[in-house]
């Protein structure tokens, strides 16, 4: 009986049953829909087995938007619970699970795939490549991430979600204090997704170093590609730490090892240290590509080259190096003494310098520009002041003695949302709007888009600025309720209203997509924004092979110079193009990974062993498989080119 109890629905309540029904109905509807329209073959051939970086990118995008919805619903539940004192909407255990999944989902299953979408869709086009270095590995990365995310998401209806916070500190997350399978989900789902992320890192470093268009020197790469390169370097150096950490956590939970236990030589402090040795660089993995996107957008709509290109690159390199030497600022209060705290306090504040350089460079890019307030630019212009606010509160938190008062309070919560939302989320949405026409051949509606930005910023300010104040008034984070007497109630109500306005702005974004699909004009050409880099030099929609002729690059803004100074990018005649074959293996192997993960979580050992053998079988199959890709003949390329040119 014990065995079956593990699968029980954790919080049998109307909400849970309603979401189970909703999941079931949506699932059935999707399956019926695909069957009715006879799209199974299409789905398999064109998407599930694809190794095309643009398609994989779009699948990352869809996953990220789904997870944004999931994490957003969590956020609304949290804010609703705290809107009034002594609220009975969620009980404490349930609240704990919701804030844990909110954190994990937003960071690892929303923000990460969103930047992966940009890496995948944009980087090969920006450097003039036909695909990434290892297309099949890229598909494996995506499917592992996807299966990890799905595995994590079923936790709230099967067995219970993790409940120890997204940081999952031990011994709280250990067997003694966290008895459901929730933390097993955490350890294993993130591990599976993390392997995928590590592969992406290797793939894109190789792609960027080795596959740039002829003539493109490192210091001529567009800024987003630079940010992607550095971000992926951080991935390769930081994610192995997470791999080890999660493995240790898994073993503590499943095999009773003594890594993080109290007594028997365990060390709960090691978890916190290793977690943030990965966790802090992880923040920069997210924010650097966001900086890269803003650099592209600001430069495009200021109609000027990016100011201080070299210092932009240098500052990212410095940030990435420093990101590995600041981890202890996440726990100044652990008692490591004044000396260690002073060291980490100074390194943390030092990061403000290169970040400040970037802010000033963006401001100087606007200087003497010809600024057009398109939707992506509007996001960027809201990003600048709001992110500055988040940045300076970060410097405040870096002062370790004062941090004794900020730590674990809503002040901290306000700070990191203040950098992640205007920093990462705005960048993602700005980039989404910016690249939408390149993906789908029509623009998102500008009017609705601008409304979205203004609503989002209004909601953001209302939701998060009050938290700075309640934090200084002693409201600890992660409390599921507070009493009337604390006086936190009015500001928490304001925060709830702000969260509601943000929710409306996201709904507006969805409506914008619907509206634009129906009414936006098509035939917008290859370069609707009058942009500056190579991805706008090819056709819209982008053909499978990206560029019929490899571009020749002479400057940082190859496409702009081609337009303004008549540089010829596409020289030479069309030759047959070698492309990789599609493969079902990444999808199948990742499905087996899902089964493996599930059986590990619930300690179903026979199934775990069988699925592990299945994974190894896939690897052996891959090793013996002969796959040399295929060639697209010249006639077919010429046909496609004529057709796409006609579509303009």
């Amino acid at each position, binding site marked *: 009986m014990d065995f079956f109890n593990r699968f029980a629905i954790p919080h049998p309540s109307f909400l849970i049953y309603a979401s189970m029904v909703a999941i079931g109905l949506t699932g059935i509807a999707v399956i019926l829909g695909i069957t009715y329209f006879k799209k199974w073959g299409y789905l398999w051939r064109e998407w599930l087995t694809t190794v095309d970086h643009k398609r994989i990118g779009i699948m990352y995008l869809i996953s990220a938007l789904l997870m944004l919805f999931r994490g957003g619903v969590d956020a609304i539940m949290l804010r609703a619970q705290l809107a009034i004192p002594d609220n009975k909407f969620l009980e404490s255990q349930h609240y704990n699970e919701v804030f844990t999944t909110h954190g994990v989902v937003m960071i690892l299953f929303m923000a990460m795939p969103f930047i992966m979408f940009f890496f995948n869709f944009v980087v090969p086009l920006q450097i003039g490549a036909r695909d990434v*270095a*290892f297309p099949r590995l890229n598909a494996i990365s995506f499917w592992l991430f996807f299966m990890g995310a799905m595995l994590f998401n079923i936790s709230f209806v099967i067995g219970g979600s993790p409940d120890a916070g997204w940081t999952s500190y031990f011994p709280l997350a250990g067997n003694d204090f966290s008895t459901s399978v929730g933390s097993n989900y955490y350890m294993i789902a993130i591990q599976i997704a993390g392997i995928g992320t*590590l592969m992406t*890192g*290797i*793939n894109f*470093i*190789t792609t960027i*170093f*080795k*596959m740039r268009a002829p003539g493109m020197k490192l210091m001529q790469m567009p800024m987003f590609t630079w940010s992607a390169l550095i971000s992926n370097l951080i991935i*390769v*150096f*930081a*994610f*192995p*730490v997470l*791999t*080890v*950490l999660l*493995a*240790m956590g898994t*073993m503590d939970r499943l*095999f*009773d*090892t*003594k*890594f993080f*236990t109290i*007594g*028997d*030589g*365990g*060390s709960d402090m*090691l978890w916190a240290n*290793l977690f943030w*040795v990965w966790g802090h660089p992880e923040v920069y993995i997210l924010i650097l590509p966001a900086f890269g996107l803003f650099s592209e957008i600001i430069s495009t709509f200021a109609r000027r080259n990016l100011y201080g290109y070299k210092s932009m690159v240098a500052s990212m390199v410095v940030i990435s190096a420093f990101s590995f030497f600041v981890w202890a600022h996440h726990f100044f209060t652990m008692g490591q003494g004044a000396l260690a705290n002073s060291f980490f306090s100074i390194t943390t504040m030092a990061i403000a310098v290169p970040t400040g350089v970037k802010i000033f460079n963006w401001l100087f890019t606007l200087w003497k520009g010809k600024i057009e307030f398109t939707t992506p630019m509007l996001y960027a212009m809201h990003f600048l002041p709001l992110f500055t606010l988040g940045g300076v509160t970060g410097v405040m938190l870096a002062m370790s003695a004062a941090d004794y008062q900020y730590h674990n309070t809503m002040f901290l919560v306000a700070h990191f949302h203040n950098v992640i939302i205007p920093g990462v989320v705005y960048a993602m949405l700005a980039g989404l709007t910016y690249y939408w026409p390149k993906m789908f051949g029509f623009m998102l509606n500008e009017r609705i888009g601008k409304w979205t930005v203004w609503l989002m910023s209004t909601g953001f300010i209302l939701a998060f600025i009050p938290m700075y104040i309640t934090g200084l008034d002693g409201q600890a984070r992660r409390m599921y309720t507070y009493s009337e007497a604390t006086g936190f109630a009015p500001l928490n109500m304001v925060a709830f209203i702000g969260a509601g306005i943000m929710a409306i702005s996201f709904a507006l974004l969805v409506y914008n997509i619907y509206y634009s699909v129906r009414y936006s004009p098509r035939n917008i050409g290859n370069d609707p924004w009058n942009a500056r880099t190579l991805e706008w030099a090819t056709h819209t929609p982008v053909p499978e092979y990206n560029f019929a002729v490899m571009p020749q690059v002479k400057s940082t803004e190859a496409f702009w110079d081609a337009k303004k100074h008549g540089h010829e990018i596409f020289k030479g005649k069309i030759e047959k193009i*070698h492309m990789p074959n599609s493969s079902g293996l990444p999808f199948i192997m990742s499905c087996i990974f899902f089964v493996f993960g599930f059986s590990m979580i619930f300690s179903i050992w026979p199934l775990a062993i069988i699925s592990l053998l299945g994974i*190894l079988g896939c690897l*052996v199959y891959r*090793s*013996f498989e002969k796959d*040399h890709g295929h060639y697209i003949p010249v006639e077919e390329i010429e046909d496609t080119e004529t057709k796409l040119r006609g579509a303009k």
Partner: protein
Amino acid sequence: MKIDHSLPLEYSTEENRLKIFGFWIFLGAEIMLFATLFTSYFVYEHRSGNGPSGAEIFELSPVLMETILLLASSFTIGLGIHAMRLGKQKAMMAFFAVTLVLGLGFLGFEIFEFTTYIHEGAGITTSGFTSMLLTTLGTHGLHVTFGFFWGLAILLQVKKRGLTPETANKSFIFSLYWHFLDVVWIFIFSFIYLKGMM
């Protein structure tokens, strides 16, 4: 597929060059993985709770055997790659086979070592120290095990398909991996065993 004959077979195509470069980056990630394990090991080195300490369980002879076997296998795979560059398929296969046999010998001794530990009351659940020790050694051991099967698959492919740019590339990458495991072992030998026995 364009083959550049001025380069060694394993570097001769664009795809091969990419794979070797990518694998070096993968090894970078592996270095971080083992660096994390070593750092954690140093944290747990003296956290043996009620269990035995390193000095109490480490024995020199099996460890020396393991070291000799693994170092020798690193040498033989180097000879294998040399033979491959000279185009001598038979010699190359022989050296690879010897490498794998030595690897298997290493694993045998390691399993023997682990059983001894467990008999001496130093299981994976005994203390922070033993958990970390067996995890660090085990991670290396799993790498060797994985390498054994990987090498076997490559050997079979070389036998079936001969020395092509593809099989040469795989063999070369495999040799990088194997050398890397040897380097890791040298660190394990110095910083876990020798340091622990002193």
